[in-house]
């Protein structure tokens, strides 16, 4: 019997050797045939030919033999599976519990892995996507301190020899006119060969050619697939249509295929010559106009390291040649694979989630192993009988493992179904972090992962009980023998492991939950009720760029003041605030260097930084952001009046200290050498701090300047209104249309919505970790209850004797509870140690998320906010929670133990 198994296992693992042997065996046969033929008088050649003819094709014979090996293996396998299924069907409850537990574990892992696979593992769906890099340059760590690229620098980096194409991208919002409603479109402004370098062919029409990018060339557009479908219903005849945009007609020349868009999804693409800002002479000649993102394709056959060296070379030369523009002590350039760049901010979160899901699976494994162990004891007789009838140990092991595998695969399939249902949710979740989210699907890799993990899990939880006991025929067959407690130690160890793993998982859940609560309870410093925000963007051709600055500013100021009046006139609107952005918005104001009058910056030391923001007079009133000193902006603070500003408390504390800020003057400093400083601005007021981003528990240092003095093209408005959102939107749209038919208004959201959107990524991550923790807790509690119940069952006789000898019921109760508590305490101690080690290892990942780099993607989520990894409250809370749950789990079996009737227990013998 053992030989069977040996041959079959050998046929699986020693396939190569068996093949060799088969070859030698058949060759021997042919040689003998040849010899025989020669002996009969044939020439050696003829003899061999004849032998080969007689023998037939060797491959056919080999195939036949191989079929024997396989069919035999499957035959026995099928028999095991049939027997296993029959066995499980006799215990549907047991099978159900195992399969559901397994499905939860596998489901969690498959779901998270499908995200990891789609976002981190799959190659970019572009031609040779691995050769695409994103360029960064800056001081020290070029990714963290990326400066962005100016048109001049683009040309410089095109000199890097190992790059076969260097292309630019920047995102603008332009108004598309000439359709029923003015549309504000997210626009990708790119080099002519952008699509060629990425390797994307158009779906309809053509993409850009070099001539399109020549100065003064007719403006052309390529539509993204999504925008084309959404706005033109997928009509190919849109190619050739002409629309008004900025100050000239634009012709649609092509439509993109449905490929993912990097670095972000835009509606349309235009060549750089069509963008009024990018194509302005002042931009082209300004080495500091760093508005561009640079992509490059590393030449085929060139190693990444080689291209890296070439980039460094360019950076070094730049610094030598233009000392003033690169005053950095350590100016470096870096090409990061596009794939890594797109997921930089999501990676650590994902690995942490996959890790927690892995923990759940370990707990599931231990829990099922325990269930199987308990079941083994009940099957003792069956197994002994089979052994007595001649089943070998390996045959029995194989049978037990097959049963586990059947369970595991059933659980795996159910888990796959669970994760498939959660896919849409996960895509939406990931989309908050990376553009690659839409590539998440359940593909072959995910299926293989699920199958692999299911089988592995099945083998692990199957082999623990299978190997932890000897198959002893004689004692088990003897009637009435108490089964030994050989498995008890293993069962206890498994419970300890489960408790410690659950503890670690719950610590993670607890710490992140504390952070979420801190962020959620944070007073943002402004009201979010009944506030509606939207964007309004003036078309750039309203005031041509050729109009001189003071006059252009004057006209923009009037334009927005008129618009503000129209908004105020809407009945039901209580107050109207306008500005460049609003708190919690995705776009943060950029900090700018500045100096106080009579307090010039110390040469050599870094310039103090403050964020410049624009606001209307009623902005603070609308947001209920209290003015703590001075006065708000007035209507007289207009383009002709002296510049005024209002700082926030944080800036006042940091830069003025005990000096009174009101009446003092500041000015912005140029970001490039030789640039002009901004005009002197008198501080007229101080407002309370608001939190621009919920994760930053320290507010930005800010200075607000009036919209009337520094009017922008794009504005954001906040309306305090009692109107319903729908009614308000309709009225605002009407007001905008009446003001200017070419003024698109978009992005309508209530501030409450904005706040909840800002909180969503953290909430989802915390909910996921929390869900995993809860899952672990429930599985562990069930495991403890199961093991204690089993142990009580086995010891009914012992309890009977104890009570017959006078042990009080309470004594028995506490004895059982103590047994449970010992296991839990051991688990807690181990878990505490594990959690501390784990947090030390993960600390960097959780706290020191890389600094926010330039780019549209959301910054990495700092999982812990204002919470240390050793937060005592969390540790105590989790420990108490586990102890209480464990006690409840032990209570039921303990009560049963205490209610044992000594007479019945002893008579049952």
């Amino acid at each position: 019997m053992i030989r069977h198994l040996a041959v079959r296992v050998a046929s699986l693992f020693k396939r190569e050797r068996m093949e060799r042997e088969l070859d030698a065996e058949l060759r021997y046969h042919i040689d003998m045939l040849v010899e025989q033929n020669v002996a009969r008088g044939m020439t050696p050649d003829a003899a061999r030919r004849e032998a080969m003819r007689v023998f037939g094709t060797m491959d056919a014979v080999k195939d036949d033999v191989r079929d024997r090996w396989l069919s035999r293996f499957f035959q026995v396998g099928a028999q095991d599976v049939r027997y296993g299924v029959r066995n499980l069907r006799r215990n549907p409850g047991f099978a159900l519990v195992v399969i559901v537990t397994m499905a939860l574990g596998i489901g969690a892992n498959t779901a998270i892995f499908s995200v990891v696979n789609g976002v981190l593992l799959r190659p970019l769906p572009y031609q040779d996507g691995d050769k695409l890099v994103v360029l960064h340059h800056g001081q020290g760590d070029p990714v963290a301190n990326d400066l962005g690229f100016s048109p001049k620098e683009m040309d410089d980096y095109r000199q890097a020899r190992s790059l076969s194409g260097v292309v630019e991208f920047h995102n603008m919002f332009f108004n598309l006119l000439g359709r029923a409603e003015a549309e504000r479109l997210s626009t990708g402004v790119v080099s002519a060969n952008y699509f060629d370098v990425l390797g994307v062919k158009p779906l309809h029409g053509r993409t850009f050619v070099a001539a399109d990018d020549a100065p003064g060339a007719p403006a052309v557009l390529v539509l993204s697939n999504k925008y084309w479908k959404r706005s033109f219903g997928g009509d190919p005849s849109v190619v050739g249509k002409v629309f008004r945009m900025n100050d000239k007609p634009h012709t649609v020349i092509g439509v993109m295929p449905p490929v993912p868009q990097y670095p972000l999804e835009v509606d349309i693409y235009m060549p750089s010559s069509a963008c009024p800002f990018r194509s302005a002479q002042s931009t082209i000649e300004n080495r500091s106009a760093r508005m561009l993102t640079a992509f490059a394709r590393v030449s085929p056959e060139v190693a990444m390291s080689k291209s890296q060296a070439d980039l460094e070379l360019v950076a070094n030369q730049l610094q030598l040649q233009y000392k003033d523009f690169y005053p950095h002590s350590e100016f470096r350039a870096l090409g990061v694979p596009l794939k890594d760049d797109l997921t930089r901010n999501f990676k650590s979160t994902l690995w942490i989630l996959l890790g927690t899901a892995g923990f759940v699976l370990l707990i599931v494994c231990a829990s099922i192993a325990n269930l199987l162990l308990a079941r083994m004891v009940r099957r003792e007789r069956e197994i002994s009988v089979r052994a007595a009838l001649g089943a070998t140990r390996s045959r029995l092991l194989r049978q037990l493992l097959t049963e586990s595998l059947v369970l595991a695969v059933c659980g795996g399939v159910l888990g796959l179904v669970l994760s498939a249902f959660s896919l849409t949710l996960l895509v939406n979740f990931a989309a908050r972090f990376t553009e690659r989210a839409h590539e998440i699907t359940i593909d072959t890799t995910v299926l293989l992962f699920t199958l692999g993990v299911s089988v592995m899990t099945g083998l692990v939880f199957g082999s623990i009980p299978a190997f932890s006991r000897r198959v002893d025929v004689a004692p088990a067959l003897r009637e009435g023998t108490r089964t030994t407690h050989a498995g008890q130690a293993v069962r206890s160890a498994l419970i300890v492991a489960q408790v410690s793993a659950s503890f670690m998982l719950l610590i993670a859940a607890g710490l992140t939950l504390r952070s979420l609560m801190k962020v959620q309870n944070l007073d943002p410093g402004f009201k979010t009720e009944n506030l509606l925000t939207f964007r309004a963007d003036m078309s750039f051709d309203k005031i041509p760029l050729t109009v001189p600055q003071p006059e252009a500013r004057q006209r923009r100021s009037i334009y927005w003041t008129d618009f503000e009046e129209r908004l105020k006139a809407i009945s039901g609107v209580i107050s109207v605030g306008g500005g460049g952005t609003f708190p919690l918005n995705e776009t943060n104001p950029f900090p700018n260097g500045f100096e106080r009058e009579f307090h010039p910056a110390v040469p050599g030391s870094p310039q103090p930084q403050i964020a410049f923001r624009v606001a209307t007079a009623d902005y603070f009133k609308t947001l209920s952001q209290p003015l703590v000193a001075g006065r708000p902006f007035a209507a007289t603070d207009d383009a002709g009046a002296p510049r005024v500003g209002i700082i926030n408390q944080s800036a006042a504390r940091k830069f003025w200290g005990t000096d009174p800020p009101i009446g003092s003057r500041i000015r912005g400093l140029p970001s490039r050498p030789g640039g002009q400083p901004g005009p002197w601005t008198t501080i007229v007021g101080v407002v309370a701090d608001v939190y621009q981003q919920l994760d930053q528990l320290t507010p930005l240092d800010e200075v607000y300047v009036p919209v009337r003095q520094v009017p922008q093209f794009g504005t954001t408005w906040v309306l305090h209104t009692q109107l319903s959102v729908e009614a308000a939107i309709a009225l605002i749209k009407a007001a905008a249309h009446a003001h200017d038919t070419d003024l698109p208004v978009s992005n309508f959201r209530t501030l409450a919505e904005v706040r909840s959107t800002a909180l969503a990524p953290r909430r989802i991550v915390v909910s996921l970790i929390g869900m995993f923790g809860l899952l672990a807790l429930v599985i562990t509690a069930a495991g403890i209850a199961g093991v204690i119940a089993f142990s009580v069952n086995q010891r009914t006789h012992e309890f009977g004797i104890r009570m017959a000898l006078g042990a009080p019921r309470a004594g028995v109760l506490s004895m059982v509870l103590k047994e449970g508590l010992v296991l839990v305490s051991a688990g807690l101690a181990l878990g505490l140690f594990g959690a501390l080690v784990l947090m030390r290892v993960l600390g960097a990942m959780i706290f020191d998320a890389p600094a926010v780099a330039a780019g549209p993607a959301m910054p990495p989520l700092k999982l812990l906010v204002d919470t240390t990894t050793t937060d005592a409250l969390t540790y105590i809370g989790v420990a108490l929670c586990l102890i209480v749950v464990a006690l409840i789990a032990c209570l039921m079996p303990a009560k049963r133990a205490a209610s044992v009737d000594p007479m019945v227990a002893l008579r049952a013998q």
Partner: protein
Amino acid sequence: MAPKSDLLQGTLDLLILRTLSGEPMHGWGISQRIQQLSKDVLQVNQGSLYPALHRLEQQGLIEAEWGASENNRQAKFYQLTREGRRQLAEETKNWERLSSAVARVLAGL
């Protein structure tokens, strides 16, 4: 080559087991021995012989070992296992019953 002797599968197994009942033999030897004993009536097709040998080995009726052949080359020698011997006895009995039954039917006509 002689007309393909389409031996029934069970019959080939029986012949192999019988041939091996004496001493260990390699595949070539078995085919030669069967041909010889049957006075060239039964010619074992290699295409059936080797699959049969491997099947019997997996069923545990025969076992194999590499050894030196008469011409001093490495060859795979097969020999009966205990179970193989039992199977041979049983199959031989079956065969005798069957063939004598067939003979009786033929004689009765």
